[in-house]
């Protein structure tokens, strides 16, 4: 009887019901879409950071965390760490790829400009498996067998006013403290989603960097990519246990806490917006129910006079609200998911590319749907509807039938 009364009550004024239902659906669809775009941005920020600088994990010599200087190095090309990684890769292992790196600071001179750079020296073949540099070449080619080649970020190339084939001189302070330098030719130009990386990164071969910085066979770090994002914590624990005190193993979250904070802040900001949407939605539903109940006060009085208990009256009002919310929710989620599907190739925001690159986000944002991001707004909508309907329902249920019957 409660559902029948609720459904007939809603059918009595179809226009009003459709208006509320549409408002709920738009709210839910808007939330689903913004959540997915927000998640897409956050996902891309993390992905860019992992793909350019961080990897899932990094292995350093002990003390690097406290003092990340060039002198803190893994001995013998990180052979011990490499063995541990070897054990974790292949069938049943959590490691997909790893690559050694040397990281240092330097000054690059071109015939037209001088720019301070971050020198990232890599094993070209291994690096191609762990980072996006090789896949981000926009001019020239990736590092290879040829000596004396450097790959530079697109913005760095612009600042140096160099093109592929031009000569540059890299000056550094080596491990002994002597100033030294070497000439390179620009072999390629890369462009990642991160402005900071594009502006200041110069890539050279690791053997050349070891020579330039006088490192011998030592390296700065090993970058590790896990089989999946879910395996990172377990893999970290496993490597910590295998390597003991001989090395520091840190996840990307530990390496870049600011990024984690930024992603969390984006999530929290989004939830604040959703909260506001749901509060507005709740007031909308409450308002419509109050109007509907106000118009039906006499009728509700008759039902109570016939012997309908106040709790059943509350149930009818709440059922009306739940029906509107459920239909609005289903429609909203359907529309939201459809919009997300239509945007599956990404939203082109190239007009704002520079601002987005500063955040480490590419100019095309692909919405990301996580089940929790859809379930949580759904639960919030039902909660909002319940709270919103409780107010008018209790208001009418506390009326005496005689009082309700006197209402015009």
């Amino acid at each position: 009887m409660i559902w029948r009364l609720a459904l007939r009550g809603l059918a009595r004024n179809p226009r009003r019901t459709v208006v509320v239902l549409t408002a709920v659906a738009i709210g839910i669809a808007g939330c689903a879409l913004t959540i997915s775009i927000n998640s897409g941005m956050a996902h891309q920020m993390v992905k860019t950071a992992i793909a350019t600088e961080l990897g899932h994990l990094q292995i350093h010599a002990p003390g690097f965390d406290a003092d990340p200087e060039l002198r803190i190095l893994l001995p013998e090309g990180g052979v011990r760490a490499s063995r541990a990684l070897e054990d974790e890769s292949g069938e049943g292992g959590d490691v997909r790829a790893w690559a050694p790196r040397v990281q240092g600071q330097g000054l690059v001179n071109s015939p037209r400009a001088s720019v301070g750079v971050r020198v990232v020296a890599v094993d070209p073949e291994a690096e191609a498996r762990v980072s996006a540099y090789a896949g981000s070449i926009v001019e020239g080619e990736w590092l290879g067998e040829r000596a004396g080649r450097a790959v530079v970020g697109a913005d760095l190339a612009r600042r140096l006013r160099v093109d592929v084939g031009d000569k540059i001189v890299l000056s550094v302070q080596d491990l002994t403290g002597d100033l030294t330098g070497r000439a390179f030719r620009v072999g390629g130009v890369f462009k990642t989603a991160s402005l900071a990386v594009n502006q200041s990164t110069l890539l050279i071969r690791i053997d050349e960097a070891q020579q330039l910085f006088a490192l011998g066979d030592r390296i700065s770090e090993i970058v590790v990519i896990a089989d999946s994002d879910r395996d990172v914590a377990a893999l970290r624990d496993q490597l910590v246990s295998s390597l003991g005190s001989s090395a520091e193993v840190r996840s990307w979250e530990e390496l870049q806490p600011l990024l984690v904070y930024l992603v969390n802040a984006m999530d929290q900001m989004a939830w604040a917006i959703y909260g506001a949407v749901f509060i507005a939605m709740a007031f909308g539903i409450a308002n419509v129910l109050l109007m509907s109940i106000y118009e039906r006060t006499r009728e509700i009085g008759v039902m109570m006079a016939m012997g309908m208990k106040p709790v059943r009256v509350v149930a009818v009002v709440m059922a009306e609200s739940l029906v509107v919310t459920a239909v609005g929710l289903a429609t909203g989620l359907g529309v939201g998911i459809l919009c997300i599907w239509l945007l599956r190739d990404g939203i082109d925001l190239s007009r704002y590319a520079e601002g987005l690159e500063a955040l480490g986000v590419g100019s095309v944002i692909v919405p990301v749907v996580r089940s929790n991001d859809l379930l949580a707004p759904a639960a919030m909508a039902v909660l909002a509807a319940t709270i919103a309907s409780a107010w008018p329902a209790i208001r009418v249920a506390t009326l005496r039938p005689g009082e309700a019957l006197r209402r015009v």
Partner: protein
Amino acid sequence: MSDSIAEARGVRKVYDTRGVVTAALDGIDFRVQEGEFAALAGPSGSGKTTLLNMLGALDAPTEGKVFIDGEDLSRMSSGELSDLRLAKLGFVFQAYNLIPVFSARENVEFVMELQQVPAAERRERALAMLAEVGLEGLGDKRPLELSGGQQQRVAVARAIVGRPRMVLADEPTANLDSETAARLLELMGDLNREHGTTFLFSTHDPMVMEAARRLVRLRDGRIVDDSREPSV
């Protein structure tokens, strides 16, 4: 007292509308006996509907007590009052007050649904009751598709079908033409005689006063006359 179905003792009802205090009932002592066919008469504002609402457990007195079947209503919760109305009382209102989203049959079934009568029995009894009030074949009509007289007959069927001990009817003939009003009164009289259902009306209508076997006159919230042999 043993055959008294409803009783008001020292009932006073005061309405306070934005500071304007009006005494609708001013110390009423009144008893309705089982099987009566009685009418409350008096000018507008004399307290007829207010007294009917008190005796129907629809409203609470400001002072005094109301008893139904010896039970003190002031000691009952709103849920218990609902149960009492459901089990013992039926109502007919001046403006019919049918549920507009229900058909005539569903309106009649409503009380039985609250009484948890099985669906098949509910339907059968509702159709029989509609036939008894002369609305055979009109069960699927919505209230707005029926005339005023037909709607009031549905309201009577709804009031009776739950087999209440007492039916309280507030100006039941006020919106009806005299022919329809006469037929409705005859119907209620038959129900009173055949089923022993107690009827208490509030009315201005001389036809109802004439039909009633007890006529109670009210003025300014007080009973001024209580006659078992009314002469209008």
